[in-house]
């Protein structure tokens, strides 16, 4: 298995045969234009696509999915799959897995000081984390532009800006891109960047799996965007069969794209879960683990275990459209319910994949900005694990009116409502930590408080949706849409931006502009609520999701939502301006610990050395002792006396 390949960075043995990857090693170690990087990955994708398409036509020549259409889904699938393979090969992801078949050992990666390392296949978790940030932002803004298109169409109750088919394609693309992005928005950037630092590790357990997860994630972006060039797909992000089986070639991009992203999700979750379990520094007991790491652990478990079901469902869908099996076609011995079960069995853990890391981020930031220990730490950790476990038992609440297992509805109503108890723990933690605190309204704290405001509305409406009688009224309407935007965008995306403002100084050594940050926050917060709150009412008044025509009397509310959405979109332009300004145009050096945090990640030198810690730290306390003037030392970093210049003053 290629995934079992820990990099022995600390092995002190002689390294002559050790670094030798043969011809692939020479590829990996070359630098400059002739090496492997993003550019060769793109070339690999294109060549792989062409090869796969040709191959598909060879093995299934003359066979077209739809008679006379010239549409050959075998060729399309082959093209996309080999495109992904070519992408990975071009990036250099396959060098070691191939060399390994000849019994070679992993090469020890040397630190690459050049900026080009950000465009390479690298096992450095800090570089991967930053690569992820730029990628998820690309995902987010692509999906955001599509959202602007949706709101443009909904300015008027009839079809006006786009044709109905185009509109459905935009809606589907928006939903899918955003869902793919949201699975990785925190675990990818912050999980990879911060977890090793927070647990005192010099690397993740499987650094190449970590890099693989990133390059698969980006390949998934190319695949899902290819849907637009195939004419889009009409099923929304849920991809309901048998519409899935009826749809045009763009559907292949959805199925293959989700499978590829799923591989990336599994790889990322696998690596982080193992890292947290095995690579903690001495003294870092479960009771001292930073709460963000707990949230990543719960999320990683969900990513690893729930995603295979999605990949299986997509795999069956791909077979339906290429080998002409009939899994989802009732008339041929299949079942349209099968997809709904498989999809939602993944789909509900998925939404907690999107909620938990957000909780982790705000719980991590609250003590810093209130100068208090985290309230009810154990409850918070237990809550995250409880949510993760329960999320496997709630999936049929998406199917209350579908006619599947109607007698099970009370049970799924119960499990769904039960999940609000561990979810509520985050409020216990938040409110308890605020009590008699010394709150500092720095920008990250603003985002954290906004999460509590938004997620409350999202969470409470979730209870409404879990109640079967109310669900009859609001299922599939804009009410649902508002609900999950309040939880995912109001929760996760707010936490993500809070996290960027909070950890940006650590990651880049630069401060983000405060004024622009405040403008960004307030615009985002106000217009987010103005965009999505009216949608609750729109949904209650009877507007189903994903429609291009709605009742005339709902136009005012829809227009409020649309105009607010444009301002919400504009707030991200402010963010991009701030981001680019602070990194590239006018960088301001950040102090080593600008928020005065006790977290282990802030105790490392800035910029963080390649191996994170010169000596493996020995953890001696949990990182939340803000209440004591002379807080116990968090960790013995074991740094020699020659490093006094880099020692960081913490905890006052």
């Amino acid at each position, binding site marked *: 298995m290629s995934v079992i390949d820990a990099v022995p960075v600390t092995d002190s043995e002689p390294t002559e045969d050790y670094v030798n990857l043969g011809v692939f090693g020479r590829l990996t170690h070359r630098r400059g234009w002739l090496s492997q990087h993003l550019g060769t990955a793109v070339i690999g994708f294109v060549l792989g696509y062409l090869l796969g398409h040709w191959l598909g036509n060879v093995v299934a020549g003359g066979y077209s999915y739809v008679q006379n259409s010239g549409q050959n889904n075998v060729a399309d699938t082959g093209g996309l799959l080999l495109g992904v393979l070519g992408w990975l090969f071009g990036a250099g992801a396959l060098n070691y897995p191939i060399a390994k078949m000849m019994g070679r050992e992993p090469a020890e990666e040397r630190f690459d000081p050049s900026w080009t390392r950000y465009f390479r296949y690298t096992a450095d978790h800090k570089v991967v984390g930053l690569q992820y940030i730029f990628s998820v932002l690309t995902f987010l803004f692509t999906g955001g532009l599509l959202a602007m298109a949706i709101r443009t169409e909904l300015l008027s109750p009839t079809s006006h800006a786009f044709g109905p088919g185009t509109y*459905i394609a935009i809606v589907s693309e928006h939903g899918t891109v955003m869902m793919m992005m949201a699975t990785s928005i925190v675990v990818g950037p912050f999980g990879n960047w911060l977890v090793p630092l927070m647990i005192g590790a010099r690397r993740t357990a499987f650094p190449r799996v970590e890099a693989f997860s990133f390059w698969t994630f980006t390949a998934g972006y190319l695949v899902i965007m290819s849907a637009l060039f195939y004419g889009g797909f009409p099923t929304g992000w849920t991809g309901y069969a048998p*519409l899935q089986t009826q749809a045009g070639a763009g559907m292949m991009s959805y199925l293959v794209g989700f499978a590829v992203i799923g591989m990336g999700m599994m790889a990322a979750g696998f690596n982080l879960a193992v890292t947290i379990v095995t690579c903690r520094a001495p003294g870092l007991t479960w009771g001292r683990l930073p709460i963000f790491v707990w949230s990543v652990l719960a999320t990683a478990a969900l990513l690893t275990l729930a995603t295979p079901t999605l990949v299986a469902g997509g795999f069956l869908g791909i077979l339906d459209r290429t080998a002409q099996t009939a899994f989802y076609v009732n*008339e041929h011995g299949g079942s349209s319910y099968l997809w709904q079960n498989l999809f939602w069995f993944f789909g509900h853990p998925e939404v907690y994949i999107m909620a938990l890391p957000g909780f982790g981020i705000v719980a991590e930031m609250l003590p810093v900005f209130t100068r*208090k220990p985290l309230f009810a730490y154990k409850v918070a950790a237990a809550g995250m694990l409880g949510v993760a476990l329960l999320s496997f038992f709630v999936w049929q609440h998406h199917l209350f009116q579908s*006619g599947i297992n109607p007698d099970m509805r009370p049970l799924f109503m119960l499990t769904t409502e039960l999940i609000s108890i561990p979810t*509520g*723990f985050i409020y216990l933690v938040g409110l308890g930590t605020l009590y008699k605190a010394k709150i*500092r309204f720095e920008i990250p704290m603003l985002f954290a408080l906004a999460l509590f405001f938004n997620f409350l509305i999202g969470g409470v409406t979730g209870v409404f949706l879990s109640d*079967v009688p109310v669900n009859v009224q609001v299922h599939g309407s804009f009410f649902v849409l508002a609900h999950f935007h309040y939880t995912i965008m109001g929760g996760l995306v707010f936490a993500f931006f809070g996290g960027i403002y909070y950890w940006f100084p650590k990651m880049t050594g630069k401060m983000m502009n405060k004024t622009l940050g405040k403008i960004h926050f307030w615009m985002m917060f106000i217009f987010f609520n103005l965009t999505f709150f009216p949608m609750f009412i729109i949904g209650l008044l*009877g507007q189903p999701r994903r429609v291009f025509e709605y009742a005339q009397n709902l136009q005012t509310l829809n227009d409020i939502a649309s105009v607010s959405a444009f301002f919400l979109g504009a707030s991200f332009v402010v963010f991009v301006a701030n981001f680019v300004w602070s990194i590239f145009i006018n960088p301001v050096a950040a102090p080593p610990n600008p928020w005065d945090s006790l977290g282990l990640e802030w105790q490392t030198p800035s910029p963080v050395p390649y191996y994170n810690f010169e000596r493996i730290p020995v953890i001696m306390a949990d990182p939340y002792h803000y209440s004591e003037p002379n807080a116990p030392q968090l960790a013995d970093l074991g740094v020699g006396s020659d490093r006094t210049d880099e020692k960081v003053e913490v905890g006052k």
Partner: protein
Amino acid sequence: MTDTSTREPRHFARMFVLWLVVAGVADALFYTLAGPHVPPGTMTTSAKDNQFDFNVLLVIALPVLIAVWIYMGYAIVMWRSTRKGVAEPVGGAVARGNKGVQFAWIASTSTIVMGLFVFGTVALINGAGSGGGEGPNPVWSPNSKAPLQVQVIGQQWKFTYRYPSFGGFETTQLILPNNTTIEFHVTSLDVTHDFWAYQLGVKADANPQLDNVAYTTTRETGSVTVRCDELCGIWHGAMYNYGRVISPAAFEAWATATQRASVANTKLLPPYALTYVPDANGADGGLYPTNVDPYSASEVYGAKVAAS
């Protein structure tokens, strides 16, 4: 530690009083002013029950929302750091996790949740499925002896309706008699649709070759909006129509008249059945080849299809 010379205000008493007033007013205002107008209205038993259910949930939810907001607002105003730069640490008892508070929180949220579950289940069973699709063998059905059966057929991209008690005629209009228990049998000719009769408080997925039953009893006359609530392709947004609930006498007259008018076409329809799908193929052949027996992989996948 707080200075003993300055009296610490009783924060919780303040917040509690504020909460009691605001939550009480909000609940009372909502229930009396907005409550009766909450969608989907009271046209049927299921709509009325679901409206009541929604109102109960909101009356419980508002105080919870308000409690958190008041607490957060209070905290933001009262407990902000006044110092420039980093505040001094907060020590003492407030910095320790209070077990009693944790227990109270968990106990109260659990109580609310279990209460909601019991309430929802009772509402679901008493409401005979609350107007939701209950699959082919409904577990909860109304007491009515002779409900009016109406079959809802979803197809891309229109709902049509069959009335088996009137010779099984099929029409594009949904007309229902008042004060009658209706038994909807929802099915589809192609992909998955969802029959959402908004004012009736009825919602049920339409699946090919499957029967999905939903019950409701009409209480008031008026207009009904029917929309498709499950994405079904390009014209999903245009898949709606308007129906009416009318007096039983008027319904009888309409039904017999329509039965008579469409008798010629009704003869050509397949006999009434709970599922209703001729085949998965289009007008000119389907996705799945028909002549695959004896099966040969090369025949199916390698055969050149003649261009027409």
